[in-house]
């Protein structure tokens, strides 16, 4: 037992725990462009002070949380009916329907975001289609707006919403719905009073699985979003790669992780309960 534990244990200690320690230490250091790596060691809180005082950074935090929250809500409104429809489909067809939800997850994330670039561009497929159909003469701009970022997040993370909700719905005892109908509940009332409350664990898991990565998302806002308020993942990236400010980027990483600690802990608990 000890020996089996040793391999992954040491690996995680070296490549997960130790790096976090370094990031934490780095977040108290000072950037120094003349050195290689561009860091002077110190014990300062000014990186954090900057993050919480500069309105630009604050705006980025708020934008990230807001975009992640609304995208999660939209994904839920879209994903729940899909999960329900799959769970109520004939049993022999469910594996195929489910595989069709999982398949995009196995294809390239980058390509799927790229697909929306072609769709949403000013002279892109969507605008051309609207023009051809005469629905819009002067198409509006979508690419480079927050709309596009929302769309991209919902699109990319929709499978993460559908799967846990489906898993809960699929296990629900059909007799409960029959009991509800027998006791006088019309189909809609039975859904609201039985199906929905019992699928709550799946809803929570799905929302966490969409929300958590969305907050720190980089590729989608970078490729589909505009030059306006950046999301926090992009701030970290730019501070690190463009400004070579490693300590500030580290402070962003520490804050991001602290921010997500509660949702991540919730998800872990859900995961542990599912496997019990």
């Amino acid at each position, binding site marked *: 037992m000890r020996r089996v534990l040793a391999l992954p244990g040491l690996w995680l200690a070296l490549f997960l725990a130790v790096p976090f320690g370094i990031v934490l230490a780095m977040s108290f250091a000072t950037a120094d462009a003349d050195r290689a790596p561009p860091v002077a060691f110190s014990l300062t809180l000014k990186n954090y002070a900057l993050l919480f005082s500069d309105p630009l950074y604050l705006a980025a935090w708020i934008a990230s949380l807001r975009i992640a929250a609304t995208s999660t809500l939209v994904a839920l409104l879209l994903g729940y009916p899909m999960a329900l429809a799959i769970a109520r489909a004939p049993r022999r067809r469910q594996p195929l329907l489910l595989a069709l939800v999982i398949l995009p997850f196995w294809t390239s994330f980058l390509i799927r975001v790229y697909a929306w670039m072609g769709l949403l561009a000013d002279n892109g497929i969507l605008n051309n289609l609207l023009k051809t159909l005469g629905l819009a003469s002067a198409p509006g701009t979508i690419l480079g707006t927050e709309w596009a970022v929302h769309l991209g997040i919902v699109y990319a993370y929709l499978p993460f919403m559908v799967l846990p909700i489906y898993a809960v719905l699929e296990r629900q005892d059909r007799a*409960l719905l*029959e009991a509800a*109908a*027998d*006791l006088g*509940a019309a*189909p809609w009332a039975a859904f609201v009073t*039985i199906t929905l409350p019992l699928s709550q664990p799946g809803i929570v898991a799905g929302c966490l699985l969409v929300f958590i990565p969305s907050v720190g998302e980089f590729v989608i806002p970078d490729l589909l979003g505009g030059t306006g308020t950046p999301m926090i993942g992009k701030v970290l990236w730019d501070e690190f790669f463009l400004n070579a400010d490693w300590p500030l980027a580290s402070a962003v990483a520490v804050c991001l992780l602290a921010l997500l600690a509660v949702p991540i802990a919730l998800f872990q608990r859900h995961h542990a309960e599912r496997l019990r």
Partner: protein
Amino acid sequence: MSGALLEVRSVAKSFGPVRAVADVSFEVARGEVFALLGGSGCGKTTLLRMLAGFERPDRGQILLDGADLADSPPHRRPINLMFQNHALFPHLSVRDNVAYGLRREGVAGAELARRTEEALALVRLEGLDARKPAQLSGGQRQRVALARALVKRPKLLLLDEPLSALDARLREETRAELLRLQRELGLAFLIVTHDQQEAMSMADRLAVMHDGGFMQVGTPRDVYARPATRHVAIFLGNANLLPAPADAAGRPGWLVLRPERIAISRVATGAGAVGAHIEDVAFEGDRTLLVARTDAGVALRIASAEPGWARGEPVFLAWDAAALHRVSA
């Protein structure tokens, strides 16, 4: 009050090529306990689901108080079902489970509280109303399911295998409880079960189902004493089947002889006594089940109130001619 409460007329249902229920007709009177008895796949569950409204009959009519139920969905039928595995809502407390059906009718406030309270008292669940179903014992769950169905004051209560989820001790208690409530409330019960003891001990009348159809309908005593077919004889209780001479039309038949109708003794008591040897002895406490082989080579099952029998013992068997009941196929 007169006339049947429930009338089922020539109801049939198939699932694809499988015929589940074939042309079944029967009536249930007010205040009657009627049992559908049959093995798995006999169509009893499909029939129950059609009465509750979960399946639509292909043909035939179901009338309740003279009104055709064909177009009323389950949630508009004045019939309630006690599910086999109770189907209690796991996220709701006992009280909310019981109140569920009333809330759907729009009952609220003091009336909701009063009627819920009443139903809980009826099944003696006061004090447990805040618990979740997972915190209850099997017998308690059974009572919640019963209260939940009764609170709607249905004209007819359907019970799907009401005793099968319970252990032996609880069965007897629950059976008495169910029948007490049935009498007090003047309800009609329709029980679906595979267990002949459950059916015989509870029902005023029972129907033995096989292959989607009724083989015989009658009072338990009647069906037991005079089974219509060989299948009914075997399905309802223990039976010895002796080959009988062909009848007037030349059809073969069997004579049914119930084990408890055979008198067994160590000495020959009359002219009709048959010599035999005991081959097997199973002591069951209140009775002893024996297998004896007659000198003519026929194995017979015998139920005896006397426990002292030993394997290999020579005995004499006797029965009245009245104990023999002829069945055809």
